């Protein structure tokens, strides 16, 4: 493993750059800055070997046609061209974008609705119980959420049972197996996982808003809608940003839930980039194409997350 330790020279270079120490304790400080690198180094080495190196390799693979075993053939940007022109791959990327609606927008919208009505969860026993329960989906593995919901959404599952009970038996179906409903059904699983987190984050943010702002809004004759737009929304900007960031990453990089609940089917209806990368690289042995898709996915995440960060954090007073 030592062969991969690429970061050692940096420490030397920086030590050279230190100004000559003058006083005694200054001397110790300068030496401390040198030894300071010893503190940073282990983390940096692990990061370099297990993240940066693979990242560079992904970039490299993406320029080759390689089956993982034989000789790789240089193909330039052909793999990227495939990603952006192949109708299946475009559909797959589109699926991830559709999932954002379910993983992000629904939990944030519902969370805001609940938060603006609850304002704060009481600190007493009721509050603790509420928080504990709403956090359960965050604590269990996504795989378990996938299994539980595959069962709920199956033809004999609870969802259909309820539908039949209220006389809507006609729409009952195997939700995850149906061509039209599979992707939204996967989306519902994600929404269930992230709803509690968003609600708690937004309610926590809500309880930090100065009640005087609401008093003032009411005195000005603002209705609940005005109040929401003028006070709640701007005050929660940062929390909304956090929720959107976390949930959008969860949507675009989704894998576990889809793998367990539908394996991407029926057809390609629920296949997402994460699953396709896994398939291309390990079943179809198209490592180059898988890597190009991985790079695109990475850039897609950044393209969605960076503007949100800028909007919600940048202009803090």
């Amino acid at each position, binding site marked *: 493993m030592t062969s991969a330790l690429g970061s050692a020279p940096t420490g030397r270079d920086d030590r050279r750059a230190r100004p000559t120490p003058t006083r005694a304790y200054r001397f110790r400080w300068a030496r401390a800055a040198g030894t300071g690198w010893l503190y940073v180094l282990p983390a940096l080495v692990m990061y370099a070997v297990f993240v940066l190196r693979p990242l560079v390799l992904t970039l490299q693979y993406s320029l080759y046609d390689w089956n993982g075993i034989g000789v790789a053939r240089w193909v330039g940007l052909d793999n990227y061209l495939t990603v952006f022109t192949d109708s299946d791959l475009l559909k797959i990327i589109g699926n991830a974008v559709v999932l954002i609606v379910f993983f992000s927008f629904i939990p944030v919208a519902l969370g805001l609705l609940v938060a603006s009505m609850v304002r704060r969860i009481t600190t007493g026993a009721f509050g603790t119980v509420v928080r504990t329960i709403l956090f359960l989906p965050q604590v269990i593995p996504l795989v378990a959420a996938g299994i539980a919901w595959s069962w709920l959404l199956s033809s*004999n599952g609870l969802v259909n049972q309820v539908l039949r009970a209220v006389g809507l038996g006609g729409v009952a179906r195997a939700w995850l197996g149906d061509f039209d409903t599979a992707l939204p059904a996967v989306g519902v699983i994600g929404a269930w996982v992230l709803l509690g987190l968003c609600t708690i984050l937004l309610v926590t943010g809500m309880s930090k808003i100065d009640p005087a702002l609401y008093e003032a809004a009411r005195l000005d004759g603002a209705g609940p809608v005005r109040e929401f737009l003028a006070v709640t929304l701007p005050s929660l900007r940062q929390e909304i940003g956090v929720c959107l960031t976390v949930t959008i990453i969860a949507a675009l990089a989704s894998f576990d839930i889809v793998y367990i609940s539908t394996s991407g089917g029926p057809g390609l209806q629920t296949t997402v980039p994460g699953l396709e990368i896994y398939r291309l690289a390990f079943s179809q042995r198209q490592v180059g194409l898988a890597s190009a898709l991985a790079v695109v996915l990475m850039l897609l995440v950044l393209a969605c997350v960076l503007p949100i960060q800028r909007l919600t954090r940048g202009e803090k007073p």
Partner: protein
Amino acid sequence: MNLSRREQVTGRVFLIALIVVTLLPFVSMLSAALQPRGTVPSGLEWPSDPQWGNFADAFTAANMGALLRSSLLIVAGVVPVSVLIATMAGFGLGQLRVPGGRLVFGLLLLGLTLPFEAVVTPLYYQMQDFGLLNTRWAIILPLIGLYMPFAVFWMRAHFTNVPVELSEAARVDGSSTWQLFWRVQVPLARPAIASLTILMFLWTWNQFLLAIVLVDDATKRTMAGALGAFQGQWGTDLVLLCAGSLLILTPTLIVFLIFQRQFIKALIQGSVKG
């Protein structure tokens, strides 16, 4: 706060609806897990004769003993090392402010939003070269690296807020950098370290992608990875699948309920900072 009575009631109703929706999947799984083996359960239906023995069957079928041991070994390999080296790096970047630290920090930020899918393919070949495929090391080592962006970011945020005068005072007293770190700074950083430990534990325990890609043998995987294999094997036996899934969830749930307060704090802070 002046909320009208009606608003308070609607708020409560919404919260309770949310709680019911959150709990239903678990209840439905439990009701299916208690049906007699070989029957086809439907929705939510309390069995007339609950078959608690199904859990014992699932325990054997899932090889729970081996799974628990494997997950614990992986957690033991990942969490202490990650927390230690991230705390050291956070101290180096946030307190000692090493020259070139900004560059290192920038590099780490690069990895903060990185989907694991983006590096899993090269990691596979790298682990193959190291001869570590199908061993727990193939999960442990990459996870430590992959956690570094968040973990260092987290600890640096803490150490940046500790006044430098504190370190200077310790310096004047003649303590070495290590003493300063270990005796003065680490004890002060305990809350940040505790939250980080909880998050690392949870993320490791629930890690799925790396487990299924890098390790074939389900008994050498994390809990989540093993659950994936369990579903593959018993997917058609819904009763056993539900019982097994609930069993595999139990350890996390117990730990979560015990440290519930710390968990929620860590998860809230974790998502805010991440």
